[in-house]
């Protein structure tokens, strides 16, 4: 039993929150509970536990980069109470057996809920559907399906996947990347790529797939989710699709809300990611879209890599950045400090909406009596330089090293049990 004293729920007036039996038992001023452990939360903001729709935990297969244990510890440290574990593991999470394994590892680790994402196609090869129904019916109860890392580029296969998952209210999360337009692509195609002599990843390669998939989802009446939207053009297409009332949702990563392609000038592959960092105009469009709801949520695309995969020339380096432990601070910097979102908005985009897209019933609920006690206490006044050595994740490939960012996660509670206290993972 925990009594949180004086937290500002969603940045509102200070209140006490009593957590008992895994739920929020009482909310109000001057609460007392003699047996409860008191958590002083003066000046801290209480948010519902964050939910990530897009996490690479790397297990099974690349335990040198991250494990379910280390990745979920990193998630808790970042204020998350649930993550969706992407399917591009070795072996690929394309069967009930693999998704159940990941799900069990998550339960055993106990730092946050782990919801495996099932592959859309067998082996992520884009040729035949994986057993989507078996994964949905498994103990892992998979609802989100994605070949992330690869685009389901075959239009017929994409149409069938969208239709098929309707039977269990699933959603296909598309990694929108037209493969032919991005062969050998290294970074955003534009002024910087031309100057640096790095092969370009044009915005149209993302936008063309998003446009096609929105039309397909409308045609078959299915739910489509678009992973890591990165361009201003994608935002326009999504806005149009939503205006039609189609069931299209989208996510943006923290790094696409803050960083631009000019960082590639360092040729340091810590800035190499897929989709690539774009231009300032794209960053501004993404922030606006997240603020007005065109983009539904923030998802980290936490992509751990061992040091040797990044300490190379640009071209052979692995793509991806870690993000679980910095996501809330980056959103604070990019969206709250700029006045684009208030804390209620942050809670909506980082907890409520991703939970709804993933069809999680016990996550993303408001902090009110009777709701599962999943919440995070955040100190908005802290301001620190990002220190990769202090990360809980097994990997260090952050693009934010040395950058001064606002805020710090003070505590995280998963169904009333602390996973983080005083900034330390338990």
């Amino acid at each position, binding site marked *: 039993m925990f009594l949180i004293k004086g937290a500002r729920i969603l940045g509102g007036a200070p209140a006490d929150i009593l957590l008992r039996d895994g739920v929020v038992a009482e909310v109000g001023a001057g609460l007392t509970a003699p047996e409860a452990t008191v958590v002083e939360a003066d000046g801290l903001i209480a948010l519902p536990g964050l939910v990530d729709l897009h996490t690479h935990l790397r297990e099974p297969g690349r335990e040198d980069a991250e494990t379910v244990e280390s990745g979920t510890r990193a998630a808790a440290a970042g204020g998350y109470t649930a993550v969706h574990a992407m399917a591009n593991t070795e072996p690929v999470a394309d069967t009930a057996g693999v998704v159940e394994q990941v799900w069990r590892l998550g339960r055993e680790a106990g730092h946050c809920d782990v919801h495996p994402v099932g592959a859309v196609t067998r082996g992520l090869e884009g040729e035949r559907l994986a057993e989507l129904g078996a994964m949905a019916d498994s103990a892992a109860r998979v609802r989100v399906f994605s070949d992330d890392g690869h685009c389901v580029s075959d239009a017929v296969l994409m149409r069938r996947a969208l239709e098929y998952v309707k039977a269990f209210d699933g959603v296909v999360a598309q990694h929108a990347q037209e493969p032919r337009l991005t062969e050998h692509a290294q970074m955003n195609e534009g002024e910087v790529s031309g100057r640096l002599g790095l092969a370009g990843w044009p915005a149209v390669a993302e936008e063309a797939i998003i446009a096609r998939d929105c039309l397909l989802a409308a045609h078959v009446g299915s739910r489509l989710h678009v992973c890591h939207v990165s361009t201003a053009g994608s935002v326009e297409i999504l806005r149009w699709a939503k205006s039609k009332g189609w069931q299209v949702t989208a996510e943006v990563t923290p790094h696409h809300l803050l960083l631009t392609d000019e960082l590639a000038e360092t040729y340091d592959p810590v800035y190499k990611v897929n989709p690539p960092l774009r231009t300032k105009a794209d960053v501004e469009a993404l922030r606006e879209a997240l603020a007005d709801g065109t983009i539904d949520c923030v998802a980290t695309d936490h992509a751990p890599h061992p040091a040797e995969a990044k300490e190379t020339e*640009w071209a052979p380096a692995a793509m991806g950045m870690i993000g679980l432990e910095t996501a809330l601070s980056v959103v604070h910097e990019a969206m709250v400090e700029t006045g684009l979102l208030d804390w209620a908005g942050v809670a909506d985009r980082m907890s409520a909406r991703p939970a709804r897209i993933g069809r999680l019933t016990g996550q993303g609920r408001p902090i009110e009596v009777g709701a599962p006690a999943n919440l995070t206490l955040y100190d908005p006044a802290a301001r620190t330089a990002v220190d990769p050595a202090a990360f809980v994740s097994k990997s260090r490939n952050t693009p934010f090293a040395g950058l001064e960012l606002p805020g710090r996660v003070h505590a995280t509670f998963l169904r009333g049990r602390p996973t983080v206290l005083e900034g330390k993972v338990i």
Partner: protein
Amino acid sequence: MKRHLISAADLTRDDALLILDTAEELSRIADRPIKKLPTLRGRTVVNLFFEDSTRTRISFEAAAKRLSADVINFSAKGSSVSKGESLKDTALTLEAMGADGVVIRHNASGAPHRLAGWVRGSVVNAGDGTHEHPTQALLDAYTMRRRLGDLDGRRVTIVGDILHSRVARSNVLLLNTLGADVTLVAPPTLFPVAVDTWPCEVAYDFDAVLPKSDVVMMLRVQQERMSDAFFPTVREYSRRYGLDARRLSALPEHAIVMHPGPMNRGVEIAAEVADSPRSTIVEQVANGVTVRMAVLYLLLGGSEPAIGGAARDGGDAARDGGDVSRGGAIRDRGDVSRGGDAIRNGGDASRREDA
């Protein structure tokens, strides 16, 4: 001047002119029976070649040897982590061996930039992927200056696969620094999308640009570009963008024809044009050694004039062809002023021989 030469943009106008002037001085020894200067004696230059390029490696090797540096050739094809030792580990090895200068050729854009972060010595980019090839641009500028004089206001037309050309990138930057007006000519498919932000003009019509060119530089076009649909056929490319005798005759009388090599005769350049007196292609190769000597001297040797200065104790060092027992530079590795002495000695010798 910066410690490394990675991009032509690293050079200010003064830096670039200093390199060209130094090369001009150094060219005087090329005609002497003994072509060696003791300037970089005791210094180690590593030629780190991850990509086959015999001509560039030999050019750098000759340049370093004429300055009496110890040269280590390290050729390592294939560079990714999966293919053996990483670039970082190679860099640490070079560092342990005490390389004063590393000349790197690599198929990945930005590799010299990465290397510079891992070694203490000076890094010279000898061509990285589709990024840059600054010493090629310097030798091209040197060649132009010898033929045409000052480059200020000169009109240079560069024709070919701009998108994939490190030579074009470095030339645009350097020629802009030196005040020349550059026009790039290619089919639209072979330009980077944002080429309009480059400090040059862009044209699709080669014929329209010809009469307004003091220099035409033809770039090699790889036949495999055809299979990627950059152009329909080699014949069509050649017709629209090749330099043949007819186009040569449309150039002003004084205009010169350049090519960084290796050429595809009959594709981007007709044999009769390549072999014409207006072609500087062979000269470029010779000038490459001189310009690279200047670059290595300025990065590794110091800032005093390469040749010339007050008379000292005779030209023994030069006459002896780099005898290690003579000359001031030898024993004090790293002493720039002594290095300068050695050069002056060499200069004295040359003057006497000239006389």
